[in-house]
């Protein structure tokens, strides 16, 4: 049977990337799980004028 990626999660346990609340990364770390916390910020706002210009050029 092919091992899917979900099955490998169940076998190995979480090796995690955390985006958002740092508390969630901390509790994973406290339980001994590997976790990388992302210092997340929203993407910069889209410049609509620039987007229109690009649309026209493409």
């Amino acid at each position, binding site marked *: *049977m092919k091992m*899917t*990626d*979900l*099955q*490998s*999660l*169940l*076998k*190995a*346990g*979480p*090796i*995690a*990337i*955390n*985006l*958002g*609340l*740092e*508390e*969630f*990364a*901390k*509790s*994973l*770390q*406290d*339980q*001994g*799980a*590997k*976790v*990388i*916390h*992302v*210092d*997340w*910020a*929203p*993407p*910069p*706002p889209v410049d609509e004028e620039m987007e229109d210009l690009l649309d026209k050029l493409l």
Partner: protein
Amino acid sequence: MSTREVSIKKNRYLDSVFLMAVAQRLSEQPGIEDAAAVMGSAANKLILVKMGFNEAELAEAAQNDLIVALEGETEAVNGLLSDVEQWLVRPKSALDGAMALSLEDAWEQQETSNLVVISVPGEYAAREARAALEHGMNVFLFSDHVSVEDEVSLKQKASEAGLIVMGPDCGTAIIAGTGIGFANVVRRGSIGVVASSGTGLQEFTSLVHRSGAGISHGFGTGGRDLSDSVGGISTLTAIDALEKDPGTQAIAVISKPPGQDTLERIVQRLNRCSKPVAACFLGLESANWPSAARFEISATIDDVVANSLLLVGKTGGSATLLLPVKNAERLEKEVERMNSNQKYVRGLFAGGTFCYQAQQIMRDGGVAVHSNAPLEGMTMLDDENASVKSTLVDMGADEFTVGVPHPMIDATHRRKRILDEVQDPTVAVLLLDFILGHNASTDPVGDLAEAIVEAKRQSSEAGHYLSVVASVCGTDEDPQGLEKQEQLLRDTGVVVFPSNAQASQFARDILSKRMEVSK
């Protein structure tokens, strides 16, 4: 002189939990009456306008801007806003591990990653989840306000890739012994569980642990997964995974009533399952239970725990915990001191599923209930802040948690509401839940103990006896300590039960007994 002023920080992001703490600290400063610190989303700006802040000034703030809003004495407000930056400095991270600047960066640092935990604002969550799936990682999506279209497309994409999306609005999971989000510390064992309700999953796993058995894996799927618009995609994926998992002997499924087509699909899948199955569709009246099911269906979480224990050959340990105990004496003691006007229950819940299950138990006993989250056949409250006759309130519902922490983390709203309820002389019973585990309050009972003592005192002064009935969802291994929390409740004069179902039944029995007495 009193004033309301706002300060806008352009392109500055801080997460909501940290911002709530900032607002809390600011509101405690001398001369400050009210404080808010929020990102500039349309919903947040609307709340600030309702609080009386200037709409034109707020219009300057975009979604990625941070707003600090203060109301109070002019001098105090201006003083704080002139140096607001010092309040926005995060304490040093408590994490030992690596940090990354983006999902991409984190993936490059740790290519063995198999799970991405996402709790960013809903409008950005689907984009991050999609990127996680494209890298072949599973997703735990805590964020809410993700559209149903995004949910379906993410779940289909995951399903095609042999992955799972737990959520959106998924609070809890336990994978190979590791709790994710709001999870209790439970031993590993052979029962696998799939739940579309977060507190339902917490109650199930805690009761299994307390009965001496353990959990192989616990999947949360998000509350909408079993609606017909989503069709149970993640539930079906989790069932497939648990069926293949060598450490799982039996599978439990817990949900609120699924969509009709989805219920049929789930039943067909469970009928074909090569492992024994137990299910609980909370809120679904037994007359509507699917007749085609070739597995045991239960009405309450306690019953699905008992059935699951039987499926893995575990008996004995559960007997004292789950079987109905003789409560006659306790009941008599609670009722005998009541005044003839006391006849209603007021339930204030941190767990949405507990509010729901309590309503089901009241309904089955013929008790009419008002709620802000009514079960079919119950009455919607006109004003969620004003209880009517018997009322059960989900204090974690959206209307109570915009801009403030969930009651599992912060008890401020519940504390105040307890003291409001006791002003009504017709109240006989106060029904409460307490939820322990990772990421919950460090002392859930301690947060409310003083308010309970005060409520009992006020009731007694008015010539009544207020019965307070509670359950604690948690285990001896949780950081808060189950025994310590239960003992504090007993010391406060609260009647304590091991589960929400039993506490709700006891509260219902008090009402029935009161009716008998008044006849």
